């Protein structure tokens, strides 16, 4: 309960800060909107050329992409920790975080919130809507619940991987360039995994389980029965990834060396 109320406190503070800079807010909103528009056109152009990919139709691939955008935008809005090393370790901001009676990771999530990223999720929904209208899929009432579960699962898979990467900073001082690379690898999760070779497929499923952010959960809604086991594993993977990463984080905090002043 306490954490929920703190969450809303920070959120309202965030909104207030954003509202302070009115022109900035407007510019940012418009540029985000334009970015999403360009994104949308890009997707349609790229997939305009592919009709069939290893048994997946063009519209199915578009659907996967649309789905992927939803958990990804949630991740981008709340787990904006790619610059954790510089911002918190090198500059010593972690000291401040650690003197407050709230879990350190939770504080960082709250401080680094970027709610405008949620716009990407709306783009995702539009893309999915477009794909659905062409695929003539039908849904049950409980699919809504599953959709929410799968989206959350995917978000936590993403979050878990990036929290683990951020935790490495506790052990090594070196600035790692792993983060941007990981964003690239993350993109592989939004294409059907069976187009890749076996090793890559294995990695994307069990090592860096990005496939659980895009393909696997989407397969359920596309009624690809052969992938159902993986689809339903999505929330489980989310919980596992996230739990492991938080444990790693906690171990890392114990190793925190602080920045000299």
């Amino acid at each position, binding site marked *: 309960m306490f954490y929920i109320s*703190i969450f809303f406190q920070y959120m309202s503070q965030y909104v207030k800060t954003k509202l302070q800079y009115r022109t900035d807010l407007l510019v940012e909103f418009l540029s985000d909107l334009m970015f999403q528009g360009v994104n949308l056109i890009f997707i349609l152009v790229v997939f305009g050329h592919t009709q069939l990919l290893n048994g997946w139709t063009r519209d199915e691939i578009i659907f996967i992409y649309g789905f992927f955008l939803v958990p990804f935008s949630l991740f981008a809005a709340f787990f904006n920790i790619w610059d954790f090393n510089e911002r918190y370790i090198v500059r010593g901001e972690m000291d401040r975080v*650690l*003197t*407050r*009676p709230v879990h350190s990771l939770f504080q960082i999530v709250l401080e680094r919130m970027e709610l405008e990223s949620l716009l990407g999720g709306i783009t995702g929904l539009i893309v999915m809507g477009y794909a659905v209208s062409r695929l003539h899929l039908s849904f049950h009432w409980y699919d809504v619940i599953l959709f929410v579960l799968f989206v959350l699962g995917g978000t936590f898979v993403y979050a878990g991987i990036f929290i683990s990467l951020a935790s490495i900073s506790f052990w090594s001082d070196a600035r790692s360039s792993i983060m941007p690379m990981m964003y690239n690898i993350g993109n592989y999760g939004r294409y059907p995994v069976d187009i890749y070779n076996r090793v890559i497929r294995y990695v994307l499923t069990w090592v860096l389980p990005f496939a659980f952010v895009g393909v696997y959960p989407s397969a359920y809604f596309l009624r690809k029965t052969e992938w159902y086991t993986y689809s339903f594993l999505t929330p489980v993977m989310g919980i596992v990834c996230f739990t492991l990463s938080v444990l790693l984080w906690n171990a890392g905090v114990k190793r*925190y060396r*602080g920045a000299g*002043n």
Partner: protein
Amino acid sequence: MYAIEVEKLRKEFKSYSSRSGLAGAFRDLFTRNYKIIRAVDDISFTVKQGEMVGYIGENGAGKSTTIKMLTGILTPTSGRVVVNGMNPHKERERFVQTIGVVFGQRSQLWWDIAVQESFRLLKKVYRVSDQDYNEHMDHVIETLDIGPLLDKPVRKLSLGQRMRCELAAALIHNPPLLFLDEPTIGLDVLVKLKIRQFLKEINEKYNTTILLTTHDMTDIEALCERVIMLDEGKIIYDGSLQRLKQNWGEGKQIHFQFRDIVPKEELMLLVDATWEQGEDRYSWIAHVRATDMAHVIGKVVSSYELKDIHIREVSTEEIIRNIYEEGIHHG
């Protein structure tokens, strides 16, 4: 019951030393040279509730490292720390509820939002009730005179203004123990005085324990009866400031400004004291015991023509400097 109990506390850092040159850099790739640096070396001390303690030492003596272990930021390598009856890093979240921290060189407030919004957020974070907040903070805000600053964003405040707000922010939950790491660094005299005044008041009113590190000895003189002095990770002095001054600074300095140039040898023959050259060739400083003062002045005045003369006590700053230069066992 002690507010702080520290026993054989130690913190070691592993640090890599890189070899020089390109060839050295290649060798570093394969075998790293590292050495273990002991930042805090088996220190033990206790602080009673309500005490104001000055924690002093040169840069790199281990002050900040100790404070960070006491506040639960760093995990000690070995030793025992009990602060407010808890183990700081083990029960971090419960523990920090009972302390306030001000790092002079690092802001605790949110840069972009108004000061009062920062306060409100911290009030939530520390779970302070409206009633407690109003009762306590009205007083704090009034004493620190930050009422007019509350609706300004932190980034628009001057350093002195910000520091007063930082102090108020650290006290939102009215902690029984306050850690201040260089709270007056870079502040002007008036702000310093105000902050000292405020700390004294808080200490009297709530019996707040205060542990303070600073390079400004006037802070220590104004606030602390007890000092703990640190050098290379070890405690070299722990006791009253009074005693430190008696052992080290009982002498006086007499500054003579002569009309003519006087050689040191002559002065040495005249009176048995430690002579030191002053700002120019005409001035000499005699370090003497207080009891010899009249005798020395009498002798000098009767033998030479003087332009000026004044007497100074040895400042705490000088005492500290002497201790670091000569070691604690001299006095």
